[in-house]
C-alpha cells in the first residue's frame, strides 16, 4: 500500500463522519430572551429547520451536540452557560443566535456579557435583533460547511482523532494541575475521585 492511499482511507472516513454529523445536529436551545420567539419560528413548519436535520431540540446538554445561545447572556448567568457547555459531550458546536449572544448587542452596560464568546468558544455568529429565520438557516448551513471541512472549534481542538466518534478531553489543553481548562476549578473532579 502506497503512502498516499494510507492517508486516503482515514480522510475519507473522516469526511463520512463529518457528513453524518452535519446532518444530524441535536440542538440545545439555551434560550434566555426574545430571540427565542424567532427560534420557535425557525423550528416551526414554515421555515422548518428539520430540512437540515437539526429539528430535534434536546433539553439535556448531555444529549446535544449543537448549543444555540439564544438571547442576552448576563454576567450573572455566564457561569451557567459555561456549565451547560461543559456538560455537552464532544464533538460539539456552538451558534450565537442574535446580536446579544454575539456581542452583547445594545446592552453595553454593567450587567451584560459582551458576547457568549467571552465564556465559551463560538463557531457561528448569526447577527440580527432578532435574526430572521432565513439568517438562522444561513448560519446553520455555514456551520454545516464548517463541520464538513473539519473546522468546528472542537474538531480543530481535538484534531483528526474524531473519526471514531469518541474523543478524549485529555487531548485538550491542560492546566498546570492536570485538569481540563474547560472546567472551573470548583467543577474539577478531585484527585481522589470523590464526586461532589
Amino acid at each position: 500500500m502506497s503512502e498516499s492511499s494510507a492517508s486516503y482511507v482515514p480522510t475519507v472516513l473522516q469526511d463520512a463522519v463529518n457528513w453524518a454529523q452535519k446532518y444530524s445536529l441535536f440542538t440545545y436551545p439555551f434560550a434566555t430572551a426574545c430571540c427565542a420567539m424567532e427560534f420557535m419560528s425557525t423550528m416551526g413548519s414554515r421555515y422548518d429547520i428539520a430540512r437540515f436535520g437539526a429539528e430535534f431540540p434536546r433539553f439535556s446538554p448531555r444529549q446535544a451536540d449543537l448549543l444555540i445561545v439564544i438571547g442576552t447572556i448576563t454576567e450573572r448567568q455566564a457561569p451557567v452557560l459555561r456549565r451547560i457547555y461543559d456538560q455537552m459531550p464532544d464533538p460539539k458546536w456552538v451558534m450565537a443566535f442574535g446580536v446579544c449572544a454575539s456581542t452583547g448587542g445594545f446592552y453595553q452596560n454593567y450587567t451584560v456579557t459582551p458576547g457568549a464568546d467571552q465564556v465559551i468558544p463560538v463557531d457561528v455568529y448569526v447577527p440580527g435583533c432578532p435574526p430572521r429565520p432565513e439568517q438562522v438557516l444561513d448560519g446553520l448551513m455555514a456551520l454545516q460547511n464548517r463541520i464538513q471541512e473539519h473546522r468546528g472549534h472542537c474538531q480543530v481542538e481535538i484534531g483528526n482523532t474524531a473519526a471514531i466518534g469518541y474523543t478524549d478531553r485529555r487531548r485538550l489543553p491542560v492546566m498546570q494541575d492536570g485538569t481540563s481548562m474547560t472546567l472551573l476549578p470548583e467543577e474539577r473532579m478531585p484527585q481522589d475521585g470523590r464526586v461532589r
Partner: protein
Amino acid sequence: MAARLLEFLTRERPAALVETGAHVGDEIAVVHREHLVEVLTLLRDHAETKMNMLSDLTVVDYLGQQPRFEVVYQLYSIPRKHRLRIKVRIGDDDGECWVPTATGLWHSANWSEREAWDLYGVRFEGHPDLRRILMYEEFVGHPLRKDYPQNGRQPLIRRPDAPATDDQTTRLLADSHDRRVS
C-alpha cells in the same frame, strides 16, 4: 382627591413635612426621615386614607446635589382609590445614606428595598434580610448610581483566551474602586 390627602397630612403631621407639591396631577409630599415611618403608618391605618398598597419604591440619584438621593414611595389605596407619592431626601455619606424600613407596614417593601439597596446602596435600617437581589453577591458597588462607570462589568467567569475587554472599561472600574476606597 389627592389634594385632600395633602391637606390631611398638613393637618395631622405638620412637623413631618418638608414640602408638598404636585406634578402632572400627582400629589407629592416630602417628609423628614425621622417622621417617615410615622407618616407611612398614619397613611396606611387612618380611616380617611387607608393606603393599603405600596405599589413601588424607587430611588433617584441627583449626583452633585445635596442631599443626593431621594427615596420615593408610591402609595395607593385600594378601597379609596387614591394615590400619594412620599419622598425622603438623604445624603450619600455612609452615616447618612439610610432610611428606616417599611417592611413592617407592607410586605411588598421587602424586595423593593433589597432592589434599592442593590442598585443604589441605600440602606434600609431594620430590614430583615437586606441582601442583593438582582446583582450577584460578588458584585462591588451599586450600579445605578450615577458615578458608577457605564461599562463597569465585573465578570464572574471568562475563558482564558477570551477577547480582552476594552481598556476604558477596566480603567473606569479601577477608578470607581479607588473612589470607593478613598
